[in-house]
C-alpha cells in the first residue's frame, strides 16, 4: 500500500542534543494518526521537519510514494501538506473568507487582479458547510471568534487549497471541553473528506476517541505504532513512560507518578 507520508531514518540534532534518532513514520492515506510522547520526546521536531520549518540532518521523506526534498514551508505547502500552528496565523482585521483566501485570492477579468468576491464568499460558505462548523457567515470578522472557531478557519484555509495532509499541533490545548469536542468532530470530518491527518497532542483520550493509530515517541526514538482499536489508555501511557523495552530511569519514574 502506498503511504500518504513515509519518513525513513530521520535524524536531527540541536547542538549536542539528539532530538530525533533514526525515526521511521508511515501515515496511511485517509487515517488519523496521533503523535504522542512526553515533553522533549521529539513530536514537534518531527512534524516541523515534515512542514519545512526544520530540515532533517539525515533521512528520507516520501509523499504518496514520491521521494521529496522539503526546504521550507512553501515546499511543504506545494506538496499538499499544511501545518496548523497552536498560535494560529490569522488576520484579525479580516473576515473569514478573506482569511481563508489571503495571499491566494480568487480573481477574474482580463487583468487577472480583480477580486472575485462572489466566488470567494460562496466557496468559503461551502467550506464551512463541508466542515460542518458553527460559523454563521463567511463575512464574520475572525477577531470576534472563539479559539475553536479560529481553529476551524485555519482548517478551512488548508482545505481550500486542497491540502492532502494536515498536521495539527495541540489543537485542543487552549480550548474548553465543548469546543474541544467540536474540534475533534471537525477532525473526523476532515478524515471523511479524504485527508490524512497527523495530530500531536498531550491528551491521550482525544486520540483514543478519534485516531486510527497512535505513534509513540520517547527520547527522540520511535517506540511503536499502536492500533487504537486494540489499545487502552494504560497501554499508551505505559509506552510513553517506559518505552518499548520497559527500561525506565529515575527521571521517568517521577514523570510516571505525575501521570497518576
Amino acid at each position, binding site marked *: 500500500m502506498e503511504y500518504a507520508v513515509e519518513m525513513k531514518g530521520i535524524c536531527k540534532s540541536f547542538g549536542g542534543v539528539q532530538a530525533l534518532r533514526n525515526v521511521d513514520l508511515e501515515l496511511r492515506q485517509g487515517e488519523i494518526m496521533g503523535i504522542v510522547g512526553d515533553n522533549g520526546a521529539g513530536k514537534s521536531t518531527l512534524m516541523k521537519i515534515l512542514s519545512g520549518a526544520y530540515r532533517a540532518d539525515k533521512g528520507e521523506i516520501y509523499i504518496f510514494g514520491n521521494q521529496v526534498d522539503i526546504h521550507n514551508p512553501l515546499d511543504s*505547502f506545494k506538496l499538499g501538506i499544511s501545518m496548523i500552528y497552536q498560535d494560529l496565523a*490569522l488576520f484579525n*482585521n*479580516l473576515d473569514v473568507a*478573506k482569511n481563508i483566501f*489571503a495571499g491566494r*485570492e480568487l*480573481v477574474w477579468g482580463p487583468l487577472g487582479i480583480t477580486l472575485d468576491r462572489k466566488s470567494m464568499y460562496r466557496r468559503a460558505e461551502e467550506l464551512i458547510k463541508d466542515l460542518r462548523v458553527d460559523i454563521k457567515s463567511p463575512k464574520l470578522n475572525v477577531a*470576534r471568534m472563539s479559539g475553536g472557531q479560529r481553529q476551524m478557519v485555519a482548517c478551512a484555509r488548508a482545505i481550500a487549497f486542497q491540502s492532502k495532509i494536515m498536521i495539527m499541533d495541540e489543537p485542543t490545548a487552549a480550548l474548553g471541553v465543548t469546543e474541544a469536542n467540536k474540534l475533534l468532530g471537525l477532525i473526523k470530518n476532515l478524515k471523511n473528506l479524504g485527508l490524512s491527518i497527523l495530530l500531536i497532542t498531550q491528551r491521550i483520550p482525544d486520540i483514543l476517541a478519534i485516531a486510527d493509530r497512535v505513534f509513540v515517541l520517547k527520547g527522540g526514538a520511535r517506540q511503536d505504532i499502536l492500533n487504537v482499536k486494540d489499545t487502552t489508555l494504560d497501554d499508551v501511557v505505559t509506552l510513553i513512560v517506559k518505552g518499548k523495552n520497559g527500561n525506565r530511569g529515575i527521571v521517568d519514574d517521577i514523570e510516571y507518578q505525575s501521570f497518576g
Partner: protein
Amino acid sequence: MVNNPSLFKKLSVIIGKIASNYTPLLILLVTLVLFSFIAPNFTTFNNFRLMIRQISFVTISAVGLMFVMVAGGIDLSIGSQIILSNIVLSLMMSSTYGYGIDPLIAIPICIAIGTILGMANGALSNTLKVHPLIITLGTSYIYRGLGYIIAGGRNIDGLPDSFRVYGQGYVGPIPVPIIIMIIVAIIGVYFLHNTNFGSRVFAMGGNQEAAHLVGINIKRMKLIVFAIGGFASGITSVLLLSRVFNGQVTTGAGIEFDALTAALLGGVSFAGGEGTIFGLITGVMIIGVLNNGMQLFGLQDFYQNLIKGALLLAAVGYDEYQKSRRAKEIVEKAAA
C-alpha cells in the same frame, strides 16, 4: 407582546452601530449644517466648487498615503517629495531658468521622480529595518534639502502657458483638479478594495508575520505601497505647480499633516489594516469644510488650528473608546 427593555436595547445597539461605522460622515454633516447657518455665502455653488478644488490636492496625496497606512506604514515625506519634484518640474519647463521642455514630456518625468522618491522610502524601510516614521522623517529632510539646493533661492517662473490647464483649467463648470481627484479616487478604490493586491495590503497591515507565512512577499509589497504614495505626490506636484505657476520651495510643504489628519478623521487606522477610501474622502471633506467655513465665518488661522487639532483628538479618541468597548464585549461574551 412588545418587550420594551429589549427593544430599547436593540435600538441603542443600532444607533451605536451607525455612530461607530459612520462617525466621520456624521461629523461632516454636523459641520456642513453648522456652517450653512453661521457662515455667510457658505452654501453657494461657487463656494462648494472652490472648497472641493482646495481639497483636491490633499485628497490625491491622501489616497497615496492611504496605501502606505493600510499596509501598516506611514509616510511623513509626502510634502518634501512634492517640494523636490515641483522644483525639478519647474526647472525642466521654465524658459527663463531651465530647459523649456514640453509639459507633456516633463509631467511624466515629474511623476516618475515622485514614484522613485516614494520607492526609496520603501527600499530604506526594507534594508534599515527601522519604523517608517523614522525613515520618512529622515528622507523628508533630505528631499526638502535637495529641493532647496536645486532651487538655489530662486522663484522659478517662465512656465509655458499650455501648462496652466492642469491646475487652473475647467471642463465645463468643473475645475480640472477636481476631475483628476475623482479619477485618482476611483483608481484608488479599485486597487485597494477590489484587487488581490489590495487584499494583501490589508492582510499585511493586519498581521505581517501571518502575511509572510501565507506567502505574501512583504519586501516587494513595501516597495510598491511606498511607490504608490510617491506616484500620488508626483501628480499633486504637477497640479500644485500649475495652480501656483511659479516654482517655489514652499509649495506642498506640510501637506502630509493634512493628509494624515484626514485619514485619521476618516477612520484609517494608524496601526494599519483598516480604512476605506470613502472614509478617507469624508475625512478630507471635513478638513475642507472646516477650513472654508471658518474662513467665511471670519475666524483667524490660530483658532482654525486649535479647532482642527481638538477635532482630531476627539475623533480618534472616540474611535479608540469604541474599539475598547467592543473588545470588552467580546471578552464578556466569551466568558459567558
